[in-house]
């Protein structure tokens, strides 16, 4: 990876996503990314289970007569114990209906970051756009994360996920353009001008929505749909079976919601105080942006929609799943 300025020591970018939590920090002259899947696996208490976990040196957390295996191990052992993983977060925020959510997120973050060494160590963590119907949910989410980081000895600040994409991907354009992260729980977007956020928004239709919807219309489990989607979906060629057909349909639904919301958001601002000087780029990141043909579909949808701001190009981040954490890292370093 290209080197970011030398003074990145003690600075960490943290992407707290619905599906994974990723940290990026400087190691020598390189950026080092570490990921834990944001999931856990509750296993009923038993001698055998305990032995297996101990033998495999798996970290777990014990509560209420259950072992909770978390992070990457959760996925690894789900098959072994024939159990389903659960998520501490949903729709981009900490899941209020999941009693173990708080302690597990905290444990995963702790494992990723370790205790702070310097007293000026700074973590910049990503947060989604504010939900209009319940803005206090976001404040709660943000404050909880901040609290965990303080406990671990870090100073912290938050960055909007869409803006993190702008920081990471639009340096050449002097941080002017639209950054979009199409993730698991939501799509986040931010229009920035010279790094100043002008408007940001989020939609709750993203990867998880696709898995669930396709599952329910085809009778497959969401987990299986997710696997098919991640391993073989090609949005550039026509669907070959029922599942693929449904995947195409719900992908279009995600894209249409995203573009409609984008146009609405941008239309309001561009008539007011702010006017663009020239066409701006759109950059796509996030796991859901990865299938072949996604970029083309976004481009077509934008063209068809009469977007109120002139768009110069639509491009895909060269590293879609790391872009948020990388942007958060940049935000952590420049803040000196």
């Amino acid at each position, binding site marked *: 990876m290209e080197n970011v300025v030398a003074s*990145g020591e003690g600075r960490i970018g943290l992407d707290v996503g619905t599906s994974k939590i990723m940290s990026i920090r400087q190691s020598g002259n390189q950026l080092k990314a570490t990921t834990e899947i944001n999931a856990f696996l509750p296993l009923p208490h038993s001698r055998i289970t305990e032995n297996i976990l101990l033998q495999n040196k798996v970290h777990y957390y014990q509560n209420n007569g259950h072992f909770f295996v978390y992070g990457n191990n959760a996925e690894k052992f789900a098959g072994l114990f024939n159990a389903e993983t659960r998520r501490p977060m949903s729709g981009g925020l900490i899941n209020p209906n999941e009693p173990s959510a708080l302690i597990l997120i905290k444990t995963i973050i702790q494992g990723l970051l370790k205790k702070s060494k310097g007293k000026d160590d700074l973590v910049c963590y990503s947060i989604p756009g504010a939900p209009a119907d319940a803005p206090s949910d976001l404040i709660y989410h943000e404050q909880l994360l901040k609290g965990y980081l303080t406990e671990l000895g870090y100073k912290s600040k938050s960055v909007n996920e869409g803006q993190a994409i702008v*920081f990471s991907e639009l340096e050449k354009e*002097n941080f002017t353009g639209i950054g979009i992260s199409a993730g698991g729980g939501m799509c986040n977007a931010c229009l920035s001008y010279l790094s*100043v956020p002008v408007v940001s928004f989020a939609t709750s239709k993203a990867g998880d929505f696709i898995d669930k919807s396709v599952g329910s219309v085809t009778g497959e489990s969401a987990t299986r749909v997710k696997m098919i989607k991640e391993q073989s979906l090609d949005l550039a060629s026509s669907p070959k079976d029922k599942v693929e057909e449904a995947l195409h349909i719900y992908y279009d639904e995600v894209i249409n919601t995203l573009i409609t919301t984008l146009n609405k*958001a941008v239309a309001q601002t561009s008539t007011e105080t702010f006017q663009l000087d020239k066409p701006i780029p759109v950059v796509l990141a996030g796991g859901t942006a990865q299938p072949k043909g996604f970029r083309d579909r976004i481009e077509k949808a934008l063209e068809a929609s009469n977007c109120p701001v002139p768009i110069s190009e639509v491009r895909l981040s060269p590293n879609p799943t790391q872009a948020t954490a990388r942007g958060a890292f940049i935000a952590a370093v420049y803040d000196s």
Partner: protein
Amino acid sequence: MRNPQTKHNPAALPHKRLRASLNVLSSRIHDPVNKLWFINRTLKGFDEKSEGLKRLPIVRGIVFHYVALESLGELIWSSNPVAVALPTRPLWVLYRLRHVLLALTIGAISLGGYRLGVVGYDAAQTGADWLFTRLIPTPAMASADVLESYPDREALPPKSVWLVSSEGNEELWSNGLRVDTSFETVGEPRSFFAFPTDGAPPVPLGGNPIGIVYHASQSDMAPLAREFNRDILTTTRELVGWLSRREIYNYMIDRFGLVYRIVSDKGVAVHAGVSIWADDDYYYLNLNKSFIGVAFESQWNAGRDIITEAQVQAALNLTDALRARYGIADANCVPHGLVSVNATRRLIGYHADWAQSFPVGALGLEDKYLVPPASMTAFGFGYDDDLAKRLGGALWPGVAQAEREVDARAKEEAVSPEVLRARLHRRYRENLDLVR
């Protein structure tokens, strides 16, 4: 379903024209963090300083450029320097004079009336953007095409090297060395003490140099790209001219391998500062008067000094020529990082240029990184963790060797190493009085 949206307040953004200026300036900085810092620092500074100037667009424009200049200055001359390329000297002057410039310009406008002000401001803004564009080119040398190491020199050095011709400002020497003399100054004649290693009284010497100290300029340079052709030479020549007026270094080798003589061989140049080195017979203290200083125009990148193949070839020719002319011993051709000390804190490696990876072998020299530094073995200097950190991990092997030697000697004399080092350091202090 949630369909949330947050509208931010883009009031922090200045007028369209100033945004365009900010865009022009930002485009010259090619690192996301630095660029982000610059933009935000400028916007914030402008926001604070332009409050209450809403009705004075011209003054706002001036204030804006003032703030941008200040931000750039901080970026370039911060204690944590960044990859913004030179020629920073004219910018430095502007930066130093920024308050004066601001006052003068605003004063001139208020005195000269609005119309004149508008014309002046237009010119000034265009000029400022043009200047900034030229001053802050994109960063330089791709590290991909930099060699990790250079092969050792195979041939024997020539026994004698002589001046073949000297036309205009260029000397040609018999081993192929070419020297540009357009910036040459004479300098104070050399005269110094050498301290016999056997403890005999110091010997006054003078005239010819006794050794060579190699430096890395670690300066920012214009990028090596066609569109910067004009800047590339101007930058170097400005730098050499500046060095020459201050008599810093005897030679400078630019990235194309062009050799500039700055101070004559027999003249004293400023380069090694507080420093210590030794050969078999003598210790030398504060090497400016006894050693020739040769600097490489270089870039500090990823914990090492980056130079080009052309520079290595030129340095080989220059080293051969100097050694042949003045009978300089291999033992006294040494990188600056190995001789520089901090006398107050009794630490080695005060300046760390070439404290690692100087291509000694390629210049036909023995590996000086294996030599235990005399500063430690003879004068009780030590090192701290910070040095290793600055060098990206490890110190050169000579340091560990020196430590072992001091420990062994302390054991022999039945004192603790600390006591021995303090004693050695006293000797340094006494000798130092002579070289001042």
